[in-house]
């Protein structure tokens, strides 16, 4: 029956013809473009020509939306039809600090509604600062291949939404809840994971402020052989932690929960050998939690210290001495978050041991302007001298000197992120009484790889002139209570070609400064200016001159704007014009 064999390819006119050349090209292109993973590379490839644009769109598997209002869901998803992983960011960062009213927006619902049609094969989702409802989660849970959910700084959902995700996502591997606000619907969501072996690899719920049913969690961990990351909330006591650890010695990332006993433990009570549980976790590299630590239990973690690359003590009220007892073993530490209760002495201990440190964050235990902060320029200097490979620093303090900041700029040339928060507003160098201009100037000048900068303390326009002059790679700049005049902002807008995100509060910049940035705004993700000197008229001018910019005026008070000044300006480029879901206190010019 050889005659009945169908022709090898669909033919026109009977004879075999090879596929047209541009079809070949496109096939080849698709194969090649698959190797491009960085989205900047992909964006560049898409600009080459129409066929490259098409091929790139069809091969992009990871879709990144930096501002949920910059593009409508339909447009994004129709272009990138085959994406299986999506990241969406919503509110600007200053919303974290109550500078934005609730109900402002960043709703996930319109996105998930579209995904239910276009992206049924969705596998991974990461949302940051979005408003996500339980119904949204329920819809997500119905996607058959869905396996990874990461929610960062989101709100709008509760444990009932988690329960649906747990019970319906049969292939769930990752459920990471990071710094979210989760309402307690009093549902035991842990019990909602189906019986039998799970494919869970990561379960992070340290931000969930609700008690959990421990026995259910224990059984879940016992039947999750792939579990590598487990971060418990503070309702898990140290005894319960022990029971979990002995069931999961394969963990690489552990959040220890409260790290204290749930009830009073009288002296002489038989307590488990916590140290042996840690010893059994040979692969542990990342340790966090310690939400309500009783420092007596600290020595239990000694066995894992030598392998740790990441240690988060930012909820642990421990002293310098207590820290020293731990940190002296942590030679491989690269990421370290800590509370300022460890004082400058504690930071000196870190500097002495952690030669490989890349990221340091020092949080204040008492986040008020007039509190006694136990860390200062002394600690910063010590870190700069000991940790030469430092790339990222976030440092809260009450006292700082230009000398220490300059020293850091010279000692740590690898710095990419420098965020210094001197908590008292407008505070100068506490030794020389000068503004902090020279310190920040040195940072932008000497740290040639710097892309993110947050300023504080007393700053004049000179600081901004330095930033504009030297901060050529700066993408994110946060300014608060700084500067003297419009000139400051002008320096930045004229001088920083890579600026993407500019967030300013309570600084004397006005309309004239705003105007100088017209050439930049289409290349930026957003501009935030609150409690500055902008007028409605000035903002309207910008809106009129730049049609693809969405200019939002967010009012503090409900009633009509009585004077011309703008409380908050939030401005961003958008392909699809102003959003339809703006609440009443937002005026889009």
């Amino acid at each position: 029956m050889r005659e009945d064999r169908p022709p090898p390819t669909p033919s026109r006119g009977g004879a075999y013809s090879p596929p047209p050349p541009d079809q070949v090209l496109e096939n080849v292109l698709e194969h090649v473009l698959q190797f491009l993973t960085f989205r900047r590379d992909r964006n560049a490839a898409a600009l080459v020509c129409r066929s490259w644009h098409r091929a790139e769109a069809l091969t992009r598997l990871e879709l990144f939306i930096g501002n949920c209002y910059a593009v409508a869901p339909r447009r994004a998803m129709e272009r990138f039809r085959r994406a299986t992983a999506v990241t969406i960011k919503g509110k600007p960062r200053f919303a974290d600090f109550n500078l934005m009213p609730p109900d402002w927006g960043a709703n996930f619902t319109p996105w998930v509604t579209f995904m239910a049609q276009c992206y049924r094969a969705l596998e991974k989702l990461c949302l940051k600062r979005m408003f996500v409802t339980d119904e949204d989660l329920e819809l997500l849970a119905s996607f058959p291949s869905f396996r990874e959910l990461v929610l960062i700084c989101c709100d709008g959902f509760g444990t009932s939404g988690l329960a649906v995700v747990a019970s319906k996502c049969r292939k769930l591997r990752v459920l990471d809840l990071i710094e979210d606000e989760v309402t307690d619907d009093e549902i035991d969501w842990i019990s909602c994971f189906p019986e039998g072996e799970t494919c869970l690899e990561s379960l992070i719920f340290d931000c969930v402020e609700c008690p959990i049913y421990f026995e259910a969690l224990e059984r879940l961990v016992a039947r999750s052989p792939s579990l590598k990351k487990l971060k418990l909330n503070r309702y898990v006591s140290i005894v319960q932690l022990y029971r979990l650890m002995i069931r999961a010695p394969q963990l690489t990332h552990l959040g220890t929960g409260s790290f204290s006993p749930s009830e009073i433990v009288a002296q002489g009570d038989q307590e488990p050998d916590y140290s042996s549980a840690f010893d059994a976790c040979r692969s542990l590299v990342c340790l966090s939690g310690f939400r309500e630590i009783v420092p007596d239990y600290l020595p239990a973690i000694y066995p894992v210290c030598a392998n740790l690359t990441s240690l988060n003590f930012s909820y642990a009220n421990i002293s310098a001495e207590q820290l020293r007892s731990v940190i002296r073993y942590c030679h491989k530490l690269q990421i370290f978050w800590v509370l300022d209760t460890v004082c400058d002495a504690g930071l000196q201990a870190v500097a002495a041991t952690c030669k490989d440190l890349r990221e340091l964050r020092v949080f204040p235990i008492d986040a008020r302007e007039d509190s006694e902060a136990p860390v200062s320029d002394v600690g910063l200097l010590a870190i700069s001298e000991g940790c030469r490979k430092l790339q990222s620093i976030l440092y809260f303090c009450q006292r700082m000197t230009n000398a220490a900041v300059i020293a850091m700029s010279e000692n740590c040339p690898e710095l990419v992120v420098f965020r210094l928060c001197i908590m008292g507003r407008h505070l100068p160098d506490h030794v020389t009484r000068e503004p902090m201009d020279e310190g920040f100037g040195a940072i932008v000048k000497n740290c040639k790889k710097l892309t993110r900068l947050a300023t504080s303390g007393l700053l004049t326009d000179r600081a901004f002139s330095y930033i504009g002059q030297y901060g050529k790679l700066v993408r994110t700049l946060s300014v608060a209570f700084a500067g003297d005049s419009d000139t400051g902002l002008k320096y930045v807008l004229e001088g920083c070609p890579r600026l993407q995100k500019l967030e300013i509060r309570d600084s004397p910049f006005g309309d004239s400064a705003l105007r100088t940035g017209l050439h930049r705004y289409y290349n930026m993700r957003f501009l935030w200016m609150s409690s500055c000197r902008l007028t409605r008229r000035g903002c309207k001018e910008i809106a009129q001159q730049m049609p693809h910019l969405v200019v939002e005026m967010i009012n503090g008070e409900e009633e009509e704007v009585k004077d011309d000044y703008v409380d908050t300006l939030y401005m961003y480029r958008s392909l699809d014009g102003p959003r339809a879901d703006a609440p009443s206190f937002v005026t889009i010019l």
Partner: protein
Amino acid sequence: MDGCSSNDLVCPQLLDLISKDREWLVQKGEQRSRGSKSEEKKLELRLGPPGEDYGTKLEREDSILSLGYFSNHKDNTYTFGGFTNTGDMKTAENGWIMKNNGSQNQQFSFTEKFQTNNKAEKKVISSAAAASANPAVVPNSSQKRTAPAPVVGWPPIRSFRKNLASSSSSKPVPESPNAMLNKVSSEEPAQSCGKGFFVKINMDGVPIGRKVNLKAYDSYQKLSSAVDELFRGLLAAQRDSSASGIHHKQEGEKSITGLLDGTGEYTLVYDDNEGDRVLVGDVPWHMFVSTVRRLRVLKTSELSTLCFGIRQEKTRLDAASK
């Protein structure tokens, strides 16, 4: 610096501007060194009540002094976000800036309505109307000498990182009220506001806690019967030791009685604002409502050891930890 070569046109301009500033800064420096006490006094800097010794406040003074100077520089009618300072402000306690020619006004963010539960930040309310008529708004803490009036969102710390001082240093006492404030969602006010006063309530043997709205009751008796209703079903479910733990309707529920007088199997206790565990019913109702932070339903049999043990242990561990 390599970057400058391509910006040759720009650099000179910037330098010109800088040098202008430098002169200006020098002027400021002279002003500062020349500044007599009387000038300092004129330029404000009151962080305490009048007549206080300046010596101890030097650090803060100088900082505001250097802040004060630049208002001379550009614009004497310098305003911030729409508020004009029409006269001297007398709110020394708040560290606001006064100038003798009255043109400076430190900006305070007026996004009061955005705050929900943040105890650490007092609400600062200012409006244009208030500014012109009475420029000073004195927050509750007007008696504090050195604290500047707190500003919304500053320092930039997320709310769940605030109040660590109270929640972490008071181990092993169960979480303080401030820990409840970690949730900023408006539907769950942890402190008293108009609509309700919710406190968490846990029962021995029941893993999931509930919440009660104390504003809904006006007597211990009503509270007791509410607790009975809340937990009756849950307790029966636990007794059945069902694996899932999700509450469902039960038959054979036993009512929970004798919560207040020690006659029942369970007794109602609460944790107060000082971290002590107290029997419910000991104090008048209104006093209870103002000090209660968390409720617990404990087994009567374990009660005396627990209460006693907690106070003892608290002192022991407090001594040991610091």
